[in-house]
């Protein structure tokens, strides 16, 4: 896990991404996938590579990084990311240090823990499945100090 994390962060730093909007928080998204490559020693290692081209069955990894570029703390930071129709959230893949993770099955209207979400299927309320999810939300548990940075991430499989 640690190695993967380091590789991921390294990949993040290498990825060229434009910022869509100037603000107090810099928010950027990258999408990557894992690829097995040979390292200098000829060993197979798994790396994150840009996922601009994918095929059904591929797992992609969305990483959202946030940085407070203001000179004061911001509070109640909530990051929301849609899960496209063609993508299915990979169970337990949502990850964000210092944040609560919740999901939506109704297009982002309401959020709750995955276990407590229900959907109507064949006229009955049943527990939501990963393919019911429409959004994922990370709520930071602490204020974000000036200069502080963090990231949130999840994996999804292309249908």
């Amino acid at each position: 896990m640690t190695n993967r994390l380091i590789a991921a962060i390294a990949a993040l730093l290498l990825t060229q991404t434009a910022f869509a909007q100037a603000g107090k928080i810099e928010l950027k998204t990258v999408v990557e996938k894992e690829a097995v490559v040979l390292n200098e020693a000829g060993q197979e290692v798994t790396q994150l590579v840009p996922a601009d081209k994918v095929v059904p069955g591929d797992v992609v990894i969305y990483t959202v990084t946030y940085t407070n570029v203001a000179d004061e703390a911001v509070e109640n930071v909530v990051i929301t990311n849609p899960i496209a129709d063609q993508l299915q959230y990979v169970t337990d893949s949502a990850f964000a240090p210092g944040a609560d993770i919740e999901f939506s099955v109704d297009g982002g209207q309401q959020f709750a823990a995955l276990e407590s979400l229900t959907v109507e299927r064949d006229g009955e309320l049943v527990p939501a499945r990963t393919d019911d999810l429409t959004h994922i939300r990370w709520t930071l548990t602490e204020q974000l100090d000036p200069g502080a940075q963090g990231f949130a991430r999840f994996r999804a499989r292309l249908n």
Partner: protein
Amino acid sequence: MVKTKHGIEPMQQNIKRWQGALPRASAALALFAMSGLASGVGTNAGTDILNTAQVNYELDGTAVSQSSNTVTITVDEVIDVATVLQSPQVTVAPGQTGAVLVFSITNTGNGPETFGLTVLNNDAADDFDPVAQTPTIFFDSDASGDLSAADTPYVPGDNDPLLPADATLTVFVVNDIPAGLANGSVGRSTLRAESATGTGTPGTVFPGAGEGGADALAGASGGAAEATGEYIVSDVEIAINKAAVVVDPFGGSAPTPGATINYTITVSVTGTGTATAATISDPIPASTTYQPGTLALNGLALSDADDVDAGAFFATAPNGEVRVALGDLTQASGVQTITFSVQIN
């Protein structure tokens, strides 16, 4: 090609023409059991999936909302195909022409793809090689599930089928059976479907060859798939006779309105082979009406309902028909006798 017909003509003089078709009855029936293989094959090639994250926060008590950059993933084309045999083993007679195997070809990739088709009859492990007719392959153009006059012949390179993702095509492979084959000889015929974009080990990339200029790559099938059907030679001859006795209401035998016609159909098998799943179906002649409760096999009454017993009356247009399933018949089965009655309207 002539569609295989397995119904007894109402008049005795027509029965001879029909006899040759019976050994193929099991194959013909199987065509009706065909089903589509449609299943989800994944997101269509060329689809762009966009993602933008959003952040909401409070700064000095003011709610602020910002969006991230938008990232896009583009779905490449996966080339995959499945070829599936739809016929059970086809029973043939030595020297028979036009023995049909049914196959389905499904584009299991995620983009439209053209496929080239070939038939291979040179299996080294079988007892004989079927001889491909020209043309060899027909599309089921009229979606009848059965080779018929309306079906279009396949001409390689000219009308190679273009299948949308997930689409299934039914094709017929037509072979002749060599003469002089021993009973029980098996011959195999293989249909191969190959992507026009290319074939290769799974993962092989065809740059820019995919839908909308995206890359295409070979899926699990490698872009080609084969299925093999089998013919088995059955040295079996079937003799069918149909006799009619007219009984008029006045004690005579004049075919007047109100007279009853008692039909007797006899079926006998000679030779060393087996006529599998033999079914006799006989349309009720024009201007007559089937007499309920008169159907019998070997002297035992069969109910008119389509139930557990071997026979039934079906109210098909125009006058209905009787149908009796005789099962697998061999010479040892002896003569099968079917009787039923109709009344002249």
